[in-house]
């Protein structure tokens, strides 16, 4: 057999039927469902008098619209409430392998709860009507976001007609420095290849720095593959993966666990496998990252400066830079560490897991939020993450520092609930997109790691976490 990449192996093991032009009908093992992108799919199924092919592959939750406080009062926005209740009704009617509705103790962001429950396994194909489905590639799964028509297609047929992607290897070797996280690696890669750099590709992340990441770090990295344009990102499973999965509710157990692990160990790119594109970074060269613009590729290291459009020759690029700086309210050449912030958001499918909250709490501990910061909010990724953090006393650390401790959900990553930026407000955010209006119309988002967001909340401006965190009063 010719040598294969991890992607090739995942693809080949799910081909139902080869189609013309290099397409194939690909079988889907896990279908994650949330309230925003599914109602029209269930309706379409109904209108065509079709029934789900294999409903026991569905794991569903409500996350985008759910409020992050006053849960006893329900969902106040009637349109949001209708969308969540529509999901409730669809699951009641069609069924699911598992459903974690609003206020369930296991409810949370769909990309946090899948892995947390062991519902994402190596070797699977995983889809969801959500672009950050790439997150699940951290387990050595082929995981990618789909549109609502494809949600309906998977519900009805358990398959998708797909075009085979090109294969990209992103290799990061070396040791990450103190204060440098998976989020910084992700942003550094996007800064290097651009937000369209991975278009048409599936990215495999490899190298000693990637091997050294925890599962949560790998999830953060694969989560951001879509921000590099790649529908899927993945890391080959290893002992770190198996240790994470063992004993989780939906993971296999007993003899089946042993058989699964034996199979999962085959899920690695062959030593002589060929990639269409290879990108290499040195871990030692990666510093904490801060985005300054309106696209994740508009990023620099914390010791950098806002770029100067006057230095750009290409008129299209110069124009987009000028527009981004005008939107962000930033002057050219401003040092990143002189950018003052109004709000802090720690959360999202990128950075809301327990290690993220620990990293933020370690920075915040014994300090106080800068008076100039109007709101610093911590939104855990799921009910289990929230309870774990509370058991460790992290909530008390955040509260003592003046940070708000909220209920789980997508929250201010995309501001479909009540959590949002007001026009002109500037936010240090651990989320994944700094697009215009993403966190609220007119809001200005800077993407950073949890430690960097926490530090900005203390100092009132961006600071280099590698050099310690000054209090705002001493700054």
């Amino acid at each position, binding site marked *: 057999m010719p040598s294969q990449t991890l992607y090739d192996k995942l693809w080949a*093991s799910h081909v139902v039927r080869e189609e013309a032009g290099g397409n194939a009908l690909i079988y889907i093992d896990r279908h994650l469902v949330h309230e925003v992108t599914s109602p029209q799919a269930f309706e379409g199924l109904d209108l065509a008098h079709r029934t789900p092919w294999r409903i026991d592959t569905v794991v569903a939750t409500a996350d985008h619209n759910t409020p992050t406080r006053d849960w006893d009062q329900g969902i106040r926005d009637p349109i949001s409430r209708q969308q969540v209740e529509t999901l409730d009704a669809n699951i009641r009617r069609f069924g699911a392998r598992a459903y974690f509705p609003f206020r369930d103790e296991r409810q949370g962001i769909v990309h946090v709860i899948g892995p947390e429950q062991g519902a994402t396994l190596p070797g699977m194909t995983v889809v969801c*009507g959500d672009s950050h489905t790439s997150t699940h590639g951290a387990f050595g799964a082929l995981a990618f976001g789909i*549109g609502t028509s494809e949600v309906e297609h998977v519900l009805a047929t358990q398959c998708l007609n797909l075009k085979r992607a090109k294969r990209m290897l992103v290799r990061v070797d070396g040791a990450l420095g103190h204060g440098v996280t998976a989020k910084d690696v992700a942003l550094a890669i996007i800064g290097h290849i651009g*937000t369209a750099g991975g278009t048409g590709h599936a990215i495999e992340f490899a190298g000693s720095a990637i091997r050294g990441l925890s599962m949560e770090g790998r999830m953060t990295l694969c989560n951001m593959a879509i921000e590099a344009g790649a529908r899927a990102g993945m890391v080959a499973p290893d002992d770190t993966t198996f240790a994470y999965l063992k004993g989780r509710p939906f993971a296999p157990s007993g003899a089946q666990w042993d058989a699964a692990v034996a199979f999962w160990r085959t899920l690695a790119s062959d030593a002589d496998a060929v990639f269409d594109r290879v990108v290499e970074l040195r871990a030692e060269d990666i510093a904490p990252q801060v985005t300054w613009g309106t696209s994740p590729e508009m990023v620099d290291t914390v010791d950098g400066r806002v770029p100067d459009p006057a230095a750009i020759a290409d008129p299209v690029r110069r124009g987009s830079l000028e527009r981004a700086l005008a939107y962000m309210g930033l002057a050219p050449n401003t040092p990143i560490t002189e950018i003052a912030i109004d709000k802090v958001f720690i959360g999202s499918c990128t950075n809301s897991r327990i290690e993220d909250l620990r990293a933020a709490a370690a920075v915040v501990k014994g300090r106080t939020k800068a008076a100039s910061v109007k709101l610093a909010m911590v939104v855990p990724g799921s009910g289990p993450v929230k309870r774990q953090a509370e058991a460790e006393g992290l909530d008390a650390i955040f509260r003592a520092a003046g940070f708000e401790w909220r209920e789980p959900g997508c929250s201010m990553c995309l501001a479909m609930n009540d959590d949002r930026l007001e026009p002109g407000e500037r936010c240090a955010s651990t989320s994944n997109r700094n697009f215009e209006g993403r966190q609220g119309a007119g809001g200005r988002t800077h993407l950073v790691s949890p430690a960097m967001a926490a530090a900005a909340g203390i100092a009132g401006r961006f600071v280099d976490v590698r050099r310690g965190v000054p209090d705002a009063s001493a700054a």
Partner: protein
Amino acid sequence: MRKFTVLDGLVAPLDRANVDTDAIIPKQFLKSIKRSGFGPNLFDEWRYLDHGEPGMDNAARPLAPDFVLNQPRYRGAEILLARENFGCGSSREHAPWALEDFGFRALIAPSYADIFHGNCFKNGLLPVVLPAAVVDTLFAETLATPGYRLTVDLAAQTVVTPSGARHAFEVDPFRKHNLLEGLDEIGLTLRHADAIRAFEAKHRAAQPWLFTTGSAA
């Protein structure tokens, strides 16, 4: 699905790179549980001077006069000319739904984000890819020529300009066929139900842990 064969349409130029799906249709409109009615909120934050929310009377809202789709010369446009990486960001199919509901039938750009690109084909909206230099020329001609139209022929895979210049484009043969015929893709896949069942049997034998059912609670 609506067929796409040949379109002779007015062109509107949107001269920005990396237009994301949050810009195409902001999140507050994603709360709808319907597939239709998104057109009035296409590019909402750029198109109106006030902040839009679901349920507003959009006809009464103040328009941003400089935004390209508000200019009278582009009224009725069916082809959107755009820059690279159009449709990046989220998987929301509300983006092509909004473009289609507004009246667009085809897009022309040097590149698209993958998920958006696939979503367009499911909604009778043809995303044509042309080289950046050709797109540059089309931008210049559109801006210089009021009433500028292009003919997009999917069967022939060409875009023809008023001066007769023909630009060939590539398109996936499966998607092309479905769009030309207006086919229901789910129906097509269900024709292979036996193959899906045969695959499932093989897959279950190889990875039985993927087929466990019942409560894990």
